[in-house]
């Protein structure tokens, strides 16, 4: 048992010495905003959407297919189902995978694993009044590098998935697709010929419909490993929805997107272009209380560090000229036969 005197002694022994006052120096200077001149802002935001619309799951699949086709028997080792019980996929998911740390003898190396699964079905007859319905979905989870002496051909560290529904009948067509990329994706077989040959790290969801109603959504973040937008912006962040003018209803604004589109320059400044609020169903009502954001005029308000910098008007009409075309249903066909023969 401690006595009161013991505690007092302990306390006195540990009394800290009085510290001298700290010189905090002069007040910090107000941070200057980055220079906004010399940048073609409409072009920057248009290119950001162009880049984004291209970043679909299909890139990962085609790159993986190309690189995997260069393998040889036993490199990589093919598995039915998941290669590892720790892989976070449904136990009954099935699918096909490879897992290895090998070299083909021709300088092509496979390291890590890749698991994928997909299915495609078509029911009905497109020549009939009822039409045909095609559905496809696929998922790939990987921590994989396929490389040769020229560098990385395919690399995915993460998960990608997409889905397609398509209805075709006499005189009628409607399709929707969605794509989700979560992870790092690089490689010559993936990105050669695209606007982002250096690859990306992204958490990006895209959705588009066409045929009867042309519409798109983009939500998430993209970091461009190389090739910044207009040589200046290395990151894109967005939460957007857009509808094609002829598909728009009386309540829709087809002049500009709903939501925001942000660019980050290589000095880490964000430039936020804010359009109509995306999640306010009454955004286009006359009495929307936060004009000018409520104006459907094709322009967004540019903010830098939260300060308004004026309007930027961007023509996104190029999106409706094929940039959002759906994948083919054939792309969703996966089979052990296609990799084991």
């Amino acid at each position: 048992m401690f006595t009161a005197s013991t505690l007092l002694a302990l306390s006195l022994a540990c009394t800290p010495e009085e510290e001298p006052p700290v010189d905090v120096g002069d007040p910090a200077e107000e941070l200057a905003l980055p220079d906004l001149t010399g940048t073609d802002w409409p072009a920057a935001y248009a290119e950001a959407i162009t880049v984004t619309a291209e970043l679909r799951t299909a890139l990962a699949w085609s790159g993986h297919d190309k690189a995997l086709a260069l393998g040889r028997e036993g490199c990589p080792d093919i598995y039915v189902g998941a290669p590892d019980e720790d892989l976070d996929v449904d136990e009954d998911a099935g699918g096909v995978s490879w897992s290895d740390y090998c070299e083909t003898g021709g300088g092509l190396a496979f390291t890590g694993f890749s698991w994928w699964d997909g299915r495609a079905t078509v029911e009905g007859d497109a020549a009939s009044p009822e039409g045909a319905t095609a559905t496809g979905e696929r998922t790939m989870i990987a921590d994989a590098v396929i490389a040769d002496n020229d560098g990385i051909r395919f690399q995915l560290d993460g998960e990608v998935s997409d889905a397609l529904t398509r209805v075709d009948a006499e005189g009628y067509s409607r399709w929707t697709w969605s794509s989700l990329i979560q992870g790092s994706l690089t490689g010559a077989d993936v990105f050669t010929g695209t606007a982002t040959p250096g690859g990306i790290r992204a958490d990006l969801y895209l959705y588009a419909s066409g045929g009867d109603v042309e519409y798109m959504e983009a939500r998430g973040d993209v970091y461009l490993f190389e090739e910044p937008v207009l040589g200046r912006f290395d990151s894109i962040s967005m939460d957007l929805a857009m509808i094609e003018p002829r598909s728009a209803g009386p309540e829709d604004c087809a002049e500009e997107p709903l939501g925001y589109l942000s660019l980050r320059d290589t000095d880490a400044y964000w430039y936020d272009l804010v359009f109509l609020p995306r999640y306010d169903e009454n955004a286009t009502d006359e009495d929307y209380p936060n004009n000018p954001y409520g104006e459907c005029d094709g322009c967004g308000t540019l903010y830098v560090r939260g300060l308004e910098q004026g309007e930027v008007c961007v023509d996104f009409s190029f999106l409706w000229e094929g940039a959002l075309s759906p994948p083919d249903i054939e792309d969703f066909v996966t089979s052990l036969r296609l990799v084991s023969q």
Partner: protein
Amino acid sequence: MRVPLNAATLPLLALILAASACGDEAADTGAEDTLPPEEETEFVIDSGFVVDTGDTGFNVGDQDREPEHTLTMSHEGEWSLTPLGGPYTALTGHMDVVEVLDGDLKEPACELTWSLTGELVDEETGGACASCAFTFAVQFYLSEGEAGACSDPELPADGDTWLLGFDEADGVLTREYDGTGIWIPWFAAELDGDTLSFDWSASVGVLVEEEE
């Protein structure tokens, strides 16, 4: 956990307070010793592996991984085509499926026998394979074995109908993939008289649940 404050616990509390007040300098600095280290944020590709793509190429040495368990899947079968001499309009046949785990031929992991019947698919309206000598809608009836014991995810279900076409030039039976109009080479095949024999085999890795 709550500790009641009473005569027994107060001295202990005082001792803890005293000790914390008079710790060494490192303890006084607090944060770095009491908080977990910040995660480093780097724009690196972390595959978990190192790829040496230098002049000498990638050298795995003795690190090449092999599957812990290997499954060898073998499919073999025959079609008896009628009428004899052709042109063929129907078939009967069978398909045997054997899966062997880790080379254990004495006790295959799975053995199935399917009975097959087939009707010719009309080239004009039935969705026949364009490059095939003939295409059949083949029904699969499981006559022996337990399909659930097999690991091949692409076996037919009992009663399934597959469109299979004989591509004589490539020597394969191609299968139409679930109504998509996409034809995938499925079996190596050879026509001898009125009998078409086919087979496919592959060895793949597989996860096996270890018995506890």
